[in-house]
């Protein structure tokens, strides 16, 4: 495939009726179970993950196994529907391990054709996480934080997403002879990290001569990791769209209601034009996020559209949340207003799975620029 000339033909950039229905269900659940004040309070609670909400997403809505085939306990839908769920989770900065379990770990296991762990992740009865530093970009070297010696895994992986509540970790490791391997591990020490993103707390994973189940080795392990990272990069854009969409909607509503100088501040051109630009940006982000979800669903130019997703969405979501803070004025800088949770999520997500710069470099190599 020649990435410089092939068009992404046939990409469906819209939402189906089923997807809109799914969105409405997830949104309604989150409005009821994850209101902003509860999400804020949870950032300082003992357990920063909302496991009750997780169980509701899994049990009541059944959205934890959307791309997984029905014979493996999934919904037999696709990544497109998963992307819609991510939009809503981003919109609520919901503290659930969905991205780690239902995107990163699920994508790796799907790529491997794994059949034992996948059904548990699909049903939501188990939570999975991919034990890599969350800043890892697709297309990089295979992670060497964990080494295998005489069948036992040792090493430390920092900044792992969604590991705190994980039942099973997928651990990339390097064997003594340098072979890339991927293990399923249940006996790791997982310790919380004080994280910039308060609604997705990271963890340090420490393995000291821990046993694991070998899932794949060599190119198969590398391909599974690539699939996870590229699928993750493409779909993270949908979560970023949810974050940016919240920032836009909330800020527009505030600009209509907040009065200064005897007028709503949204009537001042300096504010109006910034919000118009922000709307254009979010509109573009939606198209890019849909293109990413479509590309991973059809496995059409997945690497390129995953790179585009992060090259664009990282900056767009950061801009949207920064504008939200600024245009809210003083209240936007307070702890009690949720804007900072979105800012922290957006800035962290812009680094997660590689900064925009890394993804631009990937685009350059894929398109021969």
């Amino acid at each position, binding site marked *: 495939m020649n990435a410089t000339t*092939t068009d992404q033909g046939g990409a469906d950039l819209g939402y189906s009726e089923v997807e809109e229905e799914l969105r409405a269900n997830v949104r309604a659940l989150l409005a009821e179970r994850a209101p902003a004040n509860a999400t804020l309070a949870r950032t300082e609670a003992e357990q920063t993950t909302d496991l009750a909400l997780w169980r509701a997403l899994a049990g009541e809505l059944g959205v934890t196994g959307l791309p997984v085939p029905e014979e493996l306990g999934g919904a037999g839908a696709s990544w497109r529907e998963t992307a819609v769920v991510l939009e809503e989770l981003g919109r609520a900065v919901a503290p659930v391990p969905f991205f780690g379990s239902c995107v990163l770990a699920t994508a790796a296991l799907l790529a491997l054709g794994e059949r034992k762990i996948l059904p548990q992740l699909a049903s939501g009865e188990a939570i999975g996480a991919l034990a890599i530093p969350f800043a890892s970009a697709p297309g990089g070297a295979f992670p060497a934080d964990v080494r295998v010696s005489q069948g036992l895994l040792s090493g430390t992986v920092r900044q792992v997403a969604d590991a705190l509540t994980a039942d099973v970790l997928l651990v990339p490791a390097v064997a003594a002879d340098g072979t890339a391997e991927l293990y399923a591990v249940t006996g790791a020490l997982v310790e919380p990290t004080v994280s910039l993103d308060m609604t997705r707390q990271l963890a340090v994973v420490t393995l000291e001569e821990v046993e694991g189940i070998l899932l794949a080795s060599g190119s198969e392990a590398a391909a599974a990791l690539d699939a996870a990272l590229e699928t993750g990069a493409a779909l993270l854009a949908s979560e970023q769209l949810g974050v940016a969409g919240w920032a836009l909607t909330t800020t527009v509503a505030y600009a209509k209601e907040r009065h200064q100088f005897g007028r709503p501040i949204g009537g001042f*051109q300096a504010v*109006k*034009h910034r919000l118009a630009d922000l709307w254009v940006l979010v*509109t*573009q982000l939606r198209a890019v996020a849909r293109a990413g979800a479509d590309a991973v669903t059809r496995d059409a130019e997945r690497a390129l559209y995953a790179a585009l997703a992060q090259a664009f969405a990282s900056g767009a979501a950061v801009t949207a949340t920064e504008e939200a803070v600024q245009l809210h004025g003083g209240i936007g800088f307070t702890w009690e207003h949720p804007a900072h949770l979105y800012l922290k999520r957006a800035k962290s997500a812009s680094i997660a799975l590689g900064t925009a710069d890394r993804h631009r470099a990937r685009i350059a190599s894929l398109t021969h620029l």
Partner: protein
Amino acid sequence: MDAELSRAIRDLLDSYDPATTPVAEFLGARFDAGLAWVHFPEGLGGRSAPRSVQQEVNDAFAAAGAPTLDIGRHGIGLGMAAPTLLAHGSDEVRRRFLRPLWTGEETWCQLFSEPGAGSDLAALGTRAVQEPETGDWIVDGQKVWTSLAHEADWAILVTRTDPDVPKHRGMTYFVCDMHAPGVEVRPLRQATGEAEFNEVFLTGVRIPDAHRLGAVGDGWRVAQTTLMNERVAIGGHAEPREGGMIGVVARTWREHPELHTPALKDALLRLWVDAEAARLTSERLRQQLAAGQPGPEGSAAKLAFARLNQQISGLELELLGGEGLEYHDWTFRRPANPSMLEGSPGYRYLRAKGNSIEGGTSEILRGIIAERVLGLPQEIRVDKDVPWKDLPR
């Protein structure tokens, strides 16, 4: 597309070989078969079909190699005049004008902007006064930025008919014969050296009352139909990746490794990403529009492309270094169908400056988005209840 429509297309293609039938004859047959604008009524180029099937019909004809009109020359007629004629013209007017417009036998231009009425179009002052004896209208004034005025047969024209009421209320909309006595067209040379546009001077131009679109004083509402359709692509097709200006610069980049620097590469990649995001946004909009009516979302696409074209063309000149100091030709000329992708890099840079001004400045578009899409408060207006004749100008 239903079976009847498919059959109608097949029948037409069977009777008129798209490869050998003269363009106007083929398009005339397509009009008569109700396959021009399928959502138009029968007898007026359509068959009252849903607007959403238009794209499929266009695609079917394109697939058969059927001829189409040059959008550069007929875009104003097809995209702006036709929907306005349909929505506001009398039966007689619609029957007289739509067919030759569709077949390309008559060319249209748009007489809206004036030297004193740019962004504030409703401030326009070209006067139309009705002659009591004949009912004809006598028009005096000056229009500007008129593409194709020197080639057009007809114009859509907005005039001031009542200066004593606030500006939005005193306008009337006409079809104007560009060959009528008193119509004088002068080229308007622009920063690129060429003249795509014209100034049009109207002196005692006589327009029959039958060529009025909409009621007297209702011209602003009629003009909205035209303007809402302005930014909707006519039978728009998906643009391929690197199909626009970014493709030109990307090709230059690939062909000239000696020009590469890390900073230029970063700048190019940022623009590549923005251009692809803008393309996908337009494609998403196109997919949605295929099913519905034009809306203000088109403003977002125009805003984005104006900025991108300016940034990309600016980068192209820098990338070329010394070669970027040269310009291809300052000789005055009248391009038939100017294309930013064909001219020189310097031409692209200069021409792109117009992109954020023509068809609504970027500032006006931001206002439209803020008010119509986001529902933010309207600008404070000092001209709202003031008779047009009393406005400062």
